[in-house]
């Protein structure tokens, strides 16, 4: 029944089936809420794709999602689960804020890369700690990255309420970062800033790194079979630390771009769960970089249209989170079914 061509289509088809199934269950929930699913979904996707401001908003939301899910993906390639995107975003935002605030009087051409670099380094430290603990002490990275999230969020909260608080600020946030550290807007009159371009460039660089370089091979080897990798003289420990730092750094860039492109200051809610969405996106993408770009666009669209949907169709915004969770659930099932199927085929 299934031809060879169909098998090639499977990696594209099954995420689509997963999304469709999640949307169908979402529609049932919307009916439960006493609203019309067609009106709700139309409002949701019309806003996020076909209005100018709405699309700008989608790109804005896509920026941190793309950066962070690239981080989850890199770690996943080496078999590491980075659940700490949220904390790494906060730390990255802190790093670039410090450079944006305390380094003054240099041209944007130097200031912007410097602030981005600081965001990367701060995120890399926050991702590197669990990487080190996993590699050297064998502590499960899922739990450590999770616990470090709570620590990072509270640390930033403390900083913006105390030493970094803007003078006479009505609510907790830092002063504005220097103009020379701010990312330019790319769609006039909208929120879309250059961060999305940086994220797309980062995605391309990462593709080369993972798919076309020896390091990428090494990472994949560790992910596929650490014991075999060890026989091939690959240092599994060093690869894990490297990959987790890189993952943290990428999430750090998400925090950096939120500060440098969107808010121009450090604030308490740097991330509203982008780190957790990123896990979902990385799974939805099935390990491919282009998949991550598309999946983060989809998740960004859900987020950007959610409020309009709530206003025009009266469906609570939280339906979006349910749809995201269901998407991951279905993709996990389809991945598992495929694996069982290929195993059976191999036996026949």
């Amino acid at each position, binding site marked *: 029944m299934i031809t060879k061509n169909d098998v090639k289509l499977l990696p594209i088809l099954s995420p689509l089936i997963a999304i469709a199934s999640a949307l169908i269950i979402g529609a049932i*929930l919307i009916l*439960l*809420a006493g609203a019309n699913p067609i009106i709700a979904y139309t409002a949701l996707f019309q806003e996020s794709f076909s209005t100018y401001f709405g699309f700008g908003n989608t790109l804005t939301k896509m920026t941190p999602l793309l950066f962070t899910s690239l981080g989850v993906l890199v770690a996943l390639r080496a078999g590491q*689960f980075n*659940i700490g995107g949220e904390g790494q975003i906060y730390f990255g935002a802190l790093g670039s804020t410090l450079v944006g605030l305390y380094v003054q009087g240099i041209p944007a051409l130097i200031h912007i890369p410097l602030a981005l670099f600081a965001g990367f380094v701060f995120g890399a430290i926050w991702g590197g700690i669990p990487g080190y*603990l996993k590699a050297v*002490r*064998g*502590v*499960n990275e*899922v*739990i*450590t990255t*999770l*616990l*470090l999230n*709570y*620590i990072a969020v*509270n*640390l930033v*909260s*403390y900083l913006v*309420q*105390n030493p970094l608080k803007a003078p006479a600020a009505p609510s907790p946030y830092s002063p504005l970062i220097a103009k020379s550290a701010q990312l330019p807007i790319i769609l006039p009159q909208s929120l879309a800033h250059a961060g999305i371009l940086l994220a797309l460039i980062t995605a391309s660089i990462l593709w080369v790194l993972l798919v076309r370089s020896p390091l990428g091979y090494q990472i994949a080897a560790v992910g596929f079979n650490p014991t075999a990798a060890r026989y091939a003289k690959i240092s599994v420990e060093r690869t894990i630390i490297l990959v987790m730092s890189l993952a943290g750094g990428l999430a750090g860039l998400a925090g950096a771009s939120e500060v440098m492109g969107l808010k121009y200051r450090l604030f308490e809610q740097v991330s509203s769960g982008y780190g*957790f969405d990123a*896990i*979902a996106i990385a*799974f939805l993408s099935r390990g491919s970089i282009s998949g991550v770009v598309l999946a983060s666009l989809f998740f960004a669209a859900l987020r950007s249209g959610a409020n309009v949907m709530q206003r025009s169709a009266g469906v*609570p915004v*939280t*339906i*979006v*989170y*349910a*749809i*995201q*969770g*269901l998407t*991951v*659930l279905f993709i*996990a*099932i389809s*991945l*598992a*079914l495929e*694996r*069982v199927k290929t*195993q059976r085929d*191999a*036996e026949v």
Partner: protein
Amino acid sequence: MNNLNFFSDYLIASVTLAVPLAFAALGGMYSERSGVLNIALEGMLLTGAFTSAATTFYTGNPWLGMLAAVLFGGSVGLLHAFLCITLYVDQLVSGLAINLVASGLTSFLARLIFKGSNSQRLPGIPPLFQQDIFVYLLLMLVALSVYTLFHTSFGLTLRAVGEYPQAAATAGVSVSRVRYWAVVLSGCLASLGGAYLSLVQIKFFTEGISAGKGFIAIAALIFGRWHPIGSTLACLLFGATEALQLRIQALGVDIPYQFLIMLPYAIALLALLGLAGKSIPPQGLGVPYLPENHQDK
């Protein structure tokens, strides 16, 4: 005298904060002793908190709420078991997916069911001898678990399946069936912890009421070396830390509250660090068991 009062208040607060953790950790213990990772504890806590609150809200009867928590929590366990055992979904991925769905669904349904009635409190479970019933239930379950795990054939089978499923299968044990029971039980117990949150501690359901407690419970489970008493004691330690944090805040000591909030997480982290290498998980933990004909790899 005042000091003594303060101390006994402190102890009570510690126990109160430890109870939901301990239910979740005990649930996690069954699942992980059978060899199935349970990152889904967070989602199970949330499910228990939501279903017990919703049922109590509609029926006015908190006992039915408790029952609903056990039933729905058990079904979440069943889902996790089905995904991990029957479909061979990666156990971490299954747990994470369940957490995401639980968090999305409960917040969505909560807005539909409780809309605007957030001020209305739920009738809680009445206390027995000045202690809430959950504490007695927990103590009973801990004792029962120790007995079951180490003195019954079910316990022996459970541990064998978690340590060395192949050997257990050779001895004629159905690995899948044992794991199914363990994971379903895990869901029932963890969601009782959730019911405690919404029926006793907060007396209402709020979005994200579990607030990472499921993950602390996992840390406690590792810290307590997958032993019912050990993990319950670890939960007490975390409860005591949180209570201390709240006390220090209330006393107005000059420590920023954010650092105090961090404390339980930091201690969980240190606990994991200090015990790494010494705390040995069941050998078969996280490894899907494939029957003979699928065992090429």
